[in-house]
Each structure stands twice: as C-alpha cells, then as structure tokens.
C-alpha cells in the first residue's frame, strides 16, 4: 500500500539529505514529500535537482514553507530553485491526510552558517 509521507526539515544542514531520503520513499512507491522550513537551500547541485524532479515524477513534491522563511530565503527557494511554495495553513491541511510525518534531523539552527559551511 502506498503511504502519504511528509518529511519536515527544520535544519539547513539536513535539507539535501532529507530530500534524498524522501526520494528513497518515492522509489518505494510511496507518495513522498519534503517540506523545507526556515532556511535558504544549500548549494543546489545537479544531483539535488535530479532528486527533486524524480520525487515530482513519482507524484510527490518538495515544498518551501513560505510563512517560516525570510524574504531572501523565500525568493531563492521558490524562484531560483523552483521549490513549490506552501503556506503553514495549507501544509497543516495536507498533514491531516498524511500516513507518516517525519521530523528529519536536528531542530532549527540558532545561528546562520559560517562561511566554512555556507554552501
């Protein structure tokens, strides 16, 4: 049976891997969604782009939760990376239908990334 799965990603360091993990469940024939809260996406490589496309091909999606992002992160994530914008209200409605909700990784970072790990 295909499950509706939502990965909630609160920590920037975990975004890319959570998307990879979401793709893993798409490949297992689940409806898998990744939801990025708060942060600007780390450097978007071809690998990450392909992962996002593949999730969408398998009827899942990768969302940017726009209510929790500042303007710069929202603009980058939606306009440049092409994440699907979603409000907290809309996401809450979707989560009511979810079979599995996965809080992926550690809580939100308190400080922005230093240049050493900024991309």
């Amino acid at each position, binding site marked *: 049976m295909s499950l509706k799965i939502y990965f909630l990603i609160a920590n920037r360091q975990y975004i890319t*891997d959570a998307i990879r*993990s979401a793709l*893993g*469940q798409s*490949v*297992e024939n689940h409806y898998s969604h990744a939801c990025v809260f708060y942060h600007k996406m780390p450097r978007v490589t071809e690998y990450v782009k392909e992962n996002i496309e593949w999730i969408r091909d398998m009827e899942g999606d990768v969302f940017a939760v726009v209510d929790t992002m500042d303007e710069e992160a929202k603009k980058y994530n939606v306009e440049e990376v092409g994440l699907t914008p979603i409000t907290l209200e809309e996401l809450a409605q979707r989560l009511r239908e979810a079979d599995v909700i*996965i809080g992926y990784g550690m809580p939100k970072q308190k400080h922005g990334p230093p240049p050493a790990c900024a991309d």
Partner: protein
Amino acid sequence: MAKDPDKLGIFVTTPQYMPHLMKIVEAAQRAGKKVMIFFTFKAVHLTKQPDFARLVKMVPEDDLAICADSYTCEGFDVELDIPGGMTPKQMRTQAFHGQVLEECGKYMVL
C-alpha cells in the same frame, strides 16, 4: 508484508540520542516487542559509540541497518570499516526505511 502491531520501527536521523535509543529498545524488548532500526545521514556517527556493539547484539541482523551512502558521505569506509558485529548485508539503502514503514505497526523518529 503486512504491518506487525508488535514491531516498533525507529528511524534515526540525528547523532544525539544514543542513550534514548538504547533505553527505548530495552523497554520495547522487555515488553515483548520487536524493533527494526535504520540509521541515516549524521546518525551513522552513532556506530562509533561504545554502546553500538551492544545494540547490534540486541537486534536481529535483518532488523538493523545503516545507510551505506550516508556512511560513505560521513567519511567512513563502507567496505573496510563495517561497524563491529554487523555484516556487509546490513549496509543498506533507503529501501530499508521503506521496509520499516511497511512492516512496523508503530514507528518513531529520533
């Protein structure tokens, strides 16, 4: 495979909760439940903690796995540095997480 109501799936994503994980597994087994555990991304660092070998002994081979790609990404050698007590077939892909979701009647994320 149908979900087993007496099986607890644990998806471990962070490297912070080794003591919690051990206590949860001990409590579940004491209550007569089975556990199935998958370690991914930064959580693979838990394989280097002293308690990890004890965990490996507590859980059957088919029910414990770590993500081989994450293990490599975190700088470990997936062929020459298999965590103590584990076998090469426990170095798995995200498909194992799919198996956890399909087989376990209860599920939690750490």
